[in-house]
């Protein structure tokens, strides 16, 4: 059969990373081609190159056998390439119909919009696909799942020849997923080429006919779905040489005093009944796919978002979690996922940021002890080897790794006992990563307990003493270091394996 899309020897590098290394990818009309791999394997990069969002360093793209250059998303659209991304791309203040006709609203001779036509056509189309949404409703008033379905319908309506679905089911319930599959089959039968990206392997087996596995920017295998089983697939995804950078000096052996205890923490609809204990000197890993609720769990136990029910205690003292200030007073410090948005006052100086959470400790009658402020800043800049010309430098001029160290210093300065690290090594170069791991060791030696979130398996397996796997806001199982294996963790996280042995089983 004639190829619809051929991507040949595509390479792309970002500073410090080879995101794609001579990857081939083909798509035929009427094919549903699954694309799987771990976070960072290069799936998104490949798709963004196809959609004109990135430019490949090398390689070529052929459409119907002819070489094309897709310089930007507008060209991709003109070539009838469409994509449904995880995040909603609709204009939320407009109606569904307006979104369908965005930029091309039909107008009568008098220049007025023909609303009857807009909503009539949109409604007919939605009904045809079985999507129960009114064309006149504002997108903002729809549930996330409905918005997702509308986005999908819009792409279909635009008549794309190639449609990429990037984790389309992350927001969908089972019923809607079935509906989505109905739409995909319909497109397939009409000769559209589909690329389907999902972490949920069972979906790959249900809807795809071919699957390609990417790993560390390289294509591992492409084969018909019928010729591979899920175990082999997982194996192909993760079968990598374990890099020895993800190691600590010592792992916890004997169980020490419990520093942090979380019981039955619930915030509907994001997570439910999460319980765990973290001991002094321990790194407790929280693993789950993007959107599994792990970030929300730690934000809630810290007080950044109020949980519905559940309790948190530090060193046996119950914390009334209402605001971050309460969590901080009890010795919890959060190193958030998005350090520029939530971790740092970026336009202010290093010494300011280091002292940010502990000004109450060095002030009297509301006025700050300047020398103490300076002394503390100097101390942590030295101890954590923060590279900055002076402590008066604004933090936005520091590198990612040094910024992360400033955030960590903020909690050290506050003498926190429980450190929560949410994806601490994103956007940080390799050298700084190793330094951050070394810092974890130092924190533990000072008697801290660490909660560590990462979606990168080799990292969390190298760092954590125990790992709690979260899927869709529920704990799927607690895995001890001797039982760590990528297969096992991935199977738990993607729901292939039910909860086996766990201390907190009510789900």
């Amino acid at each position, binding site marked *: 059969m004639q190829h619809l899309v051929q991507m040949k020897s595509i390479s792309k590098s970002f500073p410090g990373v080879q995101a794609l290394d001579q990857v081939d990818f083909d798509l035929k009309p009427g094919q549903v081609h699954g694309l799987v791999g771990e976070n960072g394997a290069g799936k998104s990069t490949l798709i963004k190159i196809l959609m004109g969002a990135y430019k490949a360093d090398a390689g070529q793209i052929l459409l119907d056998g002819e070489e094309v250059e897709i310089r930007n998303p507008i060209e991709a659209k003109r070539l009838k390439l469409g994509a449904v991304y995880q995040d909603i791309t609709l204009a939320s203040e407009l109606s569904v119909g307006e979104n369908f006709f965005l930029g091309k609203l039909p107008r009568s001779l008098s220049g007025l919009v023909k609303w009857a036509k807009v909503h009539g056509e949109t409604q007919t189309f939605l009904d045809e696909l079985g999507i129960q949404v009114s064309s006149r409703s504002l997108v903002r008033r729809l549930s996330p799942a409905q918005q997702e379905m509308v986005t999908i319908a819009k792409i279909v309506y635009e008549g794309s020849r190639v449609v990429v679905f990037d984790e389309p089911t992350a927001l969908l319930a089972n019923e809607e997923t079935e509906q989505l599959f109905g739409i995909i089959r319909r497109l397939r039968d009409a000769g559209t080429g589909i690329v389907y990206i999902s972490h949920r392997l069972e979906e790959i087996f249900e809807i795809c006919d071919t699957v390609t596995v990417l790993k560390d920017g390289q294509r591992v295998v492409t084969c018909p779905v019928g010729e591979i089983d899920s175990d082999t697939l997982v194996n192909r995804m993760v079968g990598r040489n374990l890099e020895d950078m993800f190691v600590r000096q010592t792992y916890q052996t004997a169980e020490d005093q419990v520093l942090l205890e979380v019981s039955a923490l619930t915030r509907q609809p994001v997570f439910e009944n999460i319980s765990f204990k973290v001991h002094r000197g321990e790194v407790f890993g929280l693993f789950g796919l993007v959107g599994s609720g792990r970030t929300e769990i730690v934000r809630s136990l810290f007080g950044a978002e109020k949980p519905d029910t559940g309790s948190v205690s530090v060193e046996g003292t119950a914390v009334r979690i209402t605001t971050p200030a309460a969590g901080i007073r009890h010795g919890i410090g959060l190193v958030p996922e998005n350090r520029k948005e939530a971790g740092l006052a970026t336009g202010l100086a290093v010494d300011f940021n280091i*002292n940010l959470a502990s000004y109450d400790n060095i002030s009297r009658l509301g006025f700050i002890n300047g020398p103490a402020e300076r002394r503390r800043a100097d101390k942590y800049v030295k101890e954590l080897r923060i590279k900055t010309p002076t402590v008066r430098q604004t933090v936005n001029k520091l590198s990612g790794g040094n910024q992360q160290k400033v955030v960590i210093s903020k909690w050290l300065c506050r003498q926190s006992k429980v450190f929560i690290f949410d994806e601490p090594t994103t956007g940080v170069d390799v050298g700084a990563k190793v330094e951050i791991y070394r810092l974890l060791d130092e924190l533990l030696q000072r008697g801290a307990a660490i909660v560590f979130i990462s979606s990168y398996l080799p990292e969390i397996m190298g760092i954590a003493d125990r790992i709690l796997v979260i899927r869709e806001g529920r704990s799927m199982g607690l895995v001890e270091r001797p039982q760590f294996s990528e297969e096992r963790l991935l199977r738990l996280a993607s729901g292939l394996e039910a909860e086996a042995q766990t201390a907190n089983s009510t789900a």
Partner: protein
Amino acid sequence: MVEKTKPESKSDSTGLGKRIIAALPKEATLIFIFILFCIVLSILTPRFFTVQNLRNLVRQTATIGVVSLGMTYVIISGGIDLSVGSVLAFAGISGALLMVGGTPIVLAVIVALALGALLGLVNGIAIHEGRVPPFVATLGMMTAARGLTMLVSGARMVTGLPRPFVQFAQLTIVGLPALFFVWLVLIIGSILVTQYSRFGRNVFAIGSNREAARLSGINIRFNTYGVYMVSGFMAAVGGMMMTSRLANGVPTAGQMYELDAIAAAVVGGASLMGGEGTIIGTVVGAMIIATIRNGGNLLGVNPFVLQVLIGVLVVVAVMVDQMNKGRSE
């Protein structure tokens, strides 16, 4: 142009003079511009550098100068306060009415200042609890407080103020107007608060990154209240100063003061994005604007032309600031 295209190196390619300017704080540059201004004016007109004129200049600038101090806190916190002109008038009229009604001067002043802070608190509540953007909340207060002022005064001047109160504005201490000393005390207090107090640190943190501040345990509510209360209080101080200077409670006083106060802060280097600004900068900003007005008047420049000049100055000041930032990043 040539310099721009060069790769960013550690300033070894730039001259010594430029390096010194780059190392100086922004405020030093402003003070330099201000002094240059004064020198030019002294050369252009002999009437500028006279005791009488300078005394007048300082007296006129003190009121708007005080209001600008409050505005600086708000702008550093990432907000804006459009209500200061109306709050100034309301406090001025309230104080005047109380005094005319027989309340002791000191008590009347205290009540007027408290009223200013109270209106500021209302702004803070609308902004924090009501999630109303500061621009809108204080725009509402601007209209409402002006309305209140007209209501309580019957839209008439309040006359017959006690003599000591009126004389205060005419008083000079070591040759300088007493009003200047009010401003000076508040300047010093504000420098201490913004640079050395916890409240000051919190205001900067909130203005720079609200979410990071919250996640560092800073109480956003109380600090938001605090910032707008300071602004309301300063506006009320301005109101009392003006009432004393005009020797009457004037219900239309302080119109457009919000814009002058914002201009002073912005010329002084405060960023409306929050997290940036200094008291000294604002003080010099206010003085530069006042000096342009004063010098223009002395030189007989059409006041409308002056208005155009001041407008251009505000925009240029921010442009220069942005260009400097763009280069250093």
